[in-house]
């Protein structure tokens, strides 16, 4: 097995071009487990830890450009204001040790339906900046997840960063696990309010072959909020609306029974999480409005 240690981004891209089947390592919290279990025996590993750009972030006016390898701990410590949904999701990942190493780039690379960053990214919206020796492209997060543990990367591409809009309104993330910490989600849910576009975005985790949005639920709530003029009035949300939103989120999932939980439970829990997180974010939005006024 080759072990490649590029020290610049260009070297990394060259290595990936030369060894398309090589497995990149960021924090290694997924890769090393796979190697330990002997699930993979890649011909080469590309250690990305010496590539500086991957470990930094930049803040434009309204977008955070988050380097692929920035660990969850730093997101929690430095980016909670701008990326509240992702930060909440980061809090629930593994343990302190895992959060010190694990990264959003790695979560995207692994593209597990249970990865905790995905519902938050779907809910905030964003684009994944990927590159190869052939050039750079931006993949909208909605187009990134293709199948179980499959993403939209070409075999010579690497993830450089994720561009995530700074939150303009409340976001939430909710996860149910099989114990209180150090667990893969039974199911999870992310939500973000986007008053500037009059939309609410969602992300469902661990209840379908890929992370996915609940588009019917999003359209329903957008229409409800618009029809009643609630974005402007910051009026109260009817309980029945939140209830219906929850049901539509549950319908958007296609869960299975597995050792972590039954499909029926997942649907039920998703409807609960969706209803509750919608209510929380909306109430927070209303309070923030009053405070500002």
């Amino acid at each position, binding site marked *: 097995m080759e072990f490649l240690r590029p020290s610049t981004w260009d070297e990394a891209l060259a290595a990936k071009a030369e060894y398309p089947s090589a497995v990149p390592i960021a924090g290694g919290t997924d890769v090393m487990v796979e190697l330990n279990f002997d699930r993979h025996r890649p011909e080469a590993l590309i250690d990305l830890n010496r590539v500086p750009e991957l470990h930094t972030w930049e803040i434009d006016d309204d977008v955070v450009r988050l380097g692929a390898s920035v660990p969850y701990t730093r997101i929690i410590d430095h980016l909670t204001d701008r990326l509240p949904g992702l930060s909440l999701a980061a809090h629930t990942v593994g343990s302190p040790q895992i959060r010190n190493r694990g990264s959003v780039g790695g979560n995207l690379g692994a593209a597990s339906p249970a990865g905790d960053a995905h519902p938050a990214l779907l809910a905030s919206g964003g684009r994944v900046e990927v590159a190869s020796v052939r050039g750079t492209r931006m993949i909208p997060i909605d187009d990134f997840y293709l199948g179980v543990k499959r993403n939209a990367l070409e075999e010579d591409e690497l993830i450089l960063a994720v561009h995530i809009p700074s939150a303009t309104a409340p976001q939430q993330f909710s996860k149910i696990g099989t114990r209180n910490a150090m667990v893969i989600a039974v199911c999870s849910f992310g939500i973000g309010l986007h008053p500037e576009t009059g939309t609410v975005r969602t992300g469902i985790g661990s209840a379908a072959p890929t992370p996915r949005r609940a588009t019917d639920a999003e359209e329903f709530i957008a229409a409800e909020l618009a029809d009643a003029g609630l974005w402007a009035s910051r009026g109260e949300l009817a309980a029945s609306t939140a209830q219906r939103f929850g049901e539509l989120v549950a319908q958007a999932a296609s869960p299975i029974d597995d050792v972590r939980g039954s499909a029926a439970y997942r649907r039920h829990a998703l409807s*609960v999480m969706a209803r509750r997180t919608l209510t929380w974010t909306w109430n927070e939005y209303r309070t923030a409005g009053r405070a500002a006024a």
Partner: protein
Amino acid sequence: MTAEILGRGRARVEGPAKVTGAAKYAADLHPSGLAYGYLVLATVGRGTVTAVDAEAALASPGVLAVYSPFNPLKLYGGIVHSDQSFLGQNWLPLQDAEVRHHGQIVGLVVADTFEQARRGAALVRVVYDARPPVADFAAALPNAVSPGPINGEPDVLDLLAPGVPSIEAALAAAPVRAGGTYTQPPKNPVPLEPHATVAVWDQAGLTLHLGTQAAMPSALTVAAALGQDPARVRVLSEHVGGGFGGKLYTWAHPLLTAAAAQALGRPVKTVITHEQMFSVTGNRTPVHQTVELGASADGALQAVKHEAVSGLSTSGLIFEQAAHTTSRYLYKAPNIHVAQKVAMLDAPPSTWMRAPGEEPGSFALESAMDELAAKLNLDPVELRLRNYSTVVPGRGVPWSSKHLDECYRLGAARFGWNRRAQRPGSVREGDWLIGYGMASAAYPGNQFPYTMAKVRLRADGGAEVSSATADLGTGMRTVLSSVVAERLGLPGERVAAVLGDSVLPMNYGAFASAGTASTATAARAAASAAVAQLVQVAVQNAASPFHGLDPKDVVYAEGRLTGPGGLDAAFGELLTRIDVSGVEAQDGSAPPPDARNFAVHSFGAHFCEVRVHAWTSEVRLRRFTSVIDAGRIVNERTARSQIAGGLVFGIGQALFEGSVMEPASGRTANANLAEYLIPVNADVPVFDIQFLSHPDTNFNEFGARGIGELGTVGSAAAIANALFNATGRRVRDLPVTVDKLFG
């Protein structure tokens, strides 16, 4: 000065070594010339190995040898059915081509480095003639068979009142009945220290470093399997990073490692992985139980029927004896029926995992008692007090000491049990449903025969106590040091405890919660013998100021000898003066009390508060109160840790743990610590642990019974009962996961 050394919270003596990394475990050792072993495990659940292609492995860098059924290491089969054997299974590895379970050892690769050995193992190609395994416990239940007598009693035991024809008749006559079917999956002890072994041969024979609960039995077993004189095999096990029964028996890997080291003329180390641990080193068998209780309207039990079927590996040897260890004696009832069967499975070998029998049995019985209390609309504590047994049913003998009633009452008071709502699902705080539950705990007071200890008084003024037991985090070192320090009147720091070595005075090891009762009483006796020996030396040695005195006139107290005419010397001074490096003596534990006169158990009562999310059914434990009646507590600090650890085990049983065996292949699907869930800190609530103090001098002079397993007994039932109280939902299939509570 030292009277209070016992009982008070003394920190464990090896604590600093453990937290600084100075403590050396077997896997930490690197003798020079070391080679590394890596196991090759079967990938089918049953069948025969027809060929092993080792060519690629042997050609791989660093590989020294590939052992397999076709290139075996000789092991002597006589050990398999011997009384002396602590072999954990009923066959020896590589001696035949049979595959008895998935993950069975079918090869050992030895190489210069660990990585080379692992690589070599991956290159070994094993060809099987596979047959379908019997690996579906539920499907095997109808074929369950009698296991033979249990604890000297029939496997189907009826204790019926005169004139009552059967337990069914007694149940039919009872106005109120409750119970159900209770099930739980197989479990694994999963200690964090991996099972590791390092074998070093020299002229004196074999030194085997092995994390084990039982150094001396391991040495005898290894010697017999290797065809060695027992005097030529020494097992060292200075530190053991958790065992829980998983390191009680001698498994196959130390035998192969020792044989390989001998064959290759080099030390060999084999550390098994967490994944391998699930099939190589013993588990708790799955259990299926039915309990039916019949009571009169006032809650007096009329009939207790408890039938259990446990899995039993075709590789042996152990199965959970759920009914005989619980319903057999816990409550006074005129009619008791307990029965045990075993369903044979092509599963990895099993072991005595913490509270074997009592763990599943107490979950079933104490859940059923809660169900009965609900039917009677009676407080569960009151129900237990109404059925309190003071003599063993069917035998009429009393307990050596039993204060379980005090545990109930004190526990209820400490916990605030009177705030419990009798009606389930009726207490809510915001989105959370609140529930209270309780259960009883009882575990036999065991004491091994022939346990020996040695105490040496040294010229430097220090003392040393030794015995071939183990400290797997239990606090045994600290207990031995404290017990001897108290007897000798010395500060604890001056008494070193040495254990974990098979050549030390005779000891079966650390299991069955018998450590303190057995080894501490032996140590205390040895300390007294050492003092007598000191006095003898003092009066006999010509250079001694006590020379020529009658031993009766020489008094030992607080580290000093005194005699007539103001004679006075600290023992260290005396020994230095007469130029003797030390005096020592051995003595043994007193024989356990005659079972015809007393039954011996440790007791406890658990009370627990849970929160269940009203919408998602997520469970949070809020607090636990456990009141423990275990005789005299030698060191409250380490004792508390033992109970807390037992409770954490119970939390695992109730909410998380279970090995998932695939019926078709016999493979354990979740053989790793990511998917085999054990409680993490965030799952563990505040524990309020209170010890009663009623020294059990009918049991031993010292008055101490065991505590290592007690915390595990009943704690899962307390949780399940609290979940019922919170939600009105009775889950009888463990672990209680969110979807069972919800669905």
